[in-house]
């Protein structure tokens, strides 16, 4: 039994969730402060990966990072090759999951009562303190929802990942690409096994989040 797809999927989902957490929150925080026109444009750009088919995202990623493209060549020189590598899966997952984090975080920030931030400023609290100790805890639910959605999305990512990293057993295989490969090669039993694994992980995540929320209340 080869457990590589499980391990690979989990590390891709975990690492990309962390990246998306910071990028999504930063984008949400700064975009909210911009003038309306720029805000509207950035909003579209940041949300596009959510509505585009993942294969289209994969196409753009290949154009950008493919080994024969300028950026791909440049990155190749410092030893980074995103096409056909496991960490290419992180890039694909980040791009696809980012809009979920960005939008949920922005919704949470917009619901935040700015009087609290202003009050904190007049009390002499630093903007860093206000962000991490007041704004974030009070937007916790929205942020947490964004993280969970991003993680689940990254875990289930197929289209962009298969375009960018393909399916190489024990190298780039993830649960979702493995399921497809097994089904395609008439290995239905094995495919069912991986489907159940995926189902189990997703269920555990959602249960954990529910318990976390209840515990805090």
């Amino acid at each position, binding site marked *: 039994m080869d457990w590589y797809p499980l391990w690979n999927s989990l590390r891709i989902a975990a690492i990309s969730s962390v990246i998306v957490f910071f990028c999504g929150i930063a984008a949400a925080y700064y975009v909210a402060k911009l003038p309306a026109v720029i805000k509207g444009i950035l909003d579209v750009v940041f949300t596009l990966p959510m509505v585009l088919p993942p294969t289209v995202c994969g196409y753009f990623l290949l154009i950008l990072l493919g080994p024969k493209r300028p950026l791909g060549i440049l990155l190749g020189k410092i030893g980074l090759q995103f096409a056909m590598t496991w960490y290419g899966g992180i890039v694909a997952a980040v791009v696809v999951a980012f809009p979920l984090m960005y939008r949920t975080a922005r919704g949470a920030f917009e619901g935040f009562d700015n009087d*609290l931030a202003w*009050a*904190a400023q*007049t009390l002499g609290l*630093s903007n860093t303190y206000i962000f991490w100790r007041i704004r974030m805890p009070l937007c916790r639910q929205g942020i947490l929802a964004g993280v969970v959605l991003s993680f689940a999305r990254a875990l289930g990512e197929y289209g962009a990942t298969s375009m960018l990293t393909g399916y190489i057993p024990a190298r780039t295989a993830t649960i979702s690409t493995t399921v497809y490969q097994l089904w395609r090669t008439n290995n239905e039993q094995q495919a069912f096994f991986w489907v159940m694994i995926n189902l189990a992980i997703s269920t555990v995540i959602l249960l954990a989040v529910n318990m976390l929320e209840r515990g805090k209340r």
Partner: protein
Amino acid sequence: MSLSVHIRKRYGDFLLAIDLEHTGGICGVLGASGCGKTLTLKCIAGIEKPDEGKIILNGRTLFDSDQKINLKPQERHVGYMFQNYALFPHMTAEQNIICGMKGIPERLEETLSLMNIQECRNLYPRQLSGGQQQRTAMARILVRDPEILLLDEPFSALDSYLREIMQTQIHKILQDYGKDAVIVSHSRDEIYYLCDRAAVMHKGCILKYGMTEQVFKNPESAEAALLTGCKNIASAKKTGEKTVFVPDWGISFETGVPVKDDLEAVGIRAHYFDPGSGRNLFPVRIVEQREEPFENRILFRYEEQKEGTPDLWWRVPKNQTPAVRPVKIGVSPENILLLYKA
């Protein structure tokens, strides 16, 4: 002990143009909602940036557009109490008070007992009563020893019973604390009770600033008169050195002080009518008498009053209400407010 504010700020059609030299003590800013009073406080606190101007607190420049000085709110040392108190909901009362301060502040216990919130120090804001929330917000400000207190509609979130109790407490705190304060309110009672000096604000401008009693006694403009609670205002013309004619009411009044040429209107406070007065006594027709717990509110019209003009208000304590409806009501000349262009 002084606050000097000279600022301009445009918001679409609305222009905030404040020129205020507060010489110290407690200053009340009286104005209707939307007149820019909260915006003014926010500019002083550094939450909003004026387009241009200067703000100087006790000789320290907080904002100066010419010199490009704009201190951060954190550097201004002002205590700002928000209308809804803005307590951090995920912190207890005590955490709210000491949050972000290095160690336990020396004055914590003293402040807690001064505010009478020792018992609820470990409760979260949602578990506190309105009065406790306000006292916690006040403690959070005082423990940092700000140079000036800015209170935005401090009592509007309280019910009327609690409001009177808290007014007394805040009054005492302000007296004991001995620092300058600016209190913004739409309630003339609050301003009159709490403030040594008052500014009347209308559509982004300060119409009048002075000793509170003086401002109420002589509001000088129809807008200010209205805000200080004058119910009966009508346009008027000067007819003699101490006489004015009010066309709407069809009456000429004798005034207490000489009238200036550019008189616009006169005002008469509802409490100042007196059927027993021998001066400015004119025939009236009582329209309605409304009973309140301790006062009667009587609506009446002068005999010659124009159709379509509002009834006049007369408020009189129950025990002084005449048994027979009066046919003539007078008002002493010094109680005729002379109102000029703002």
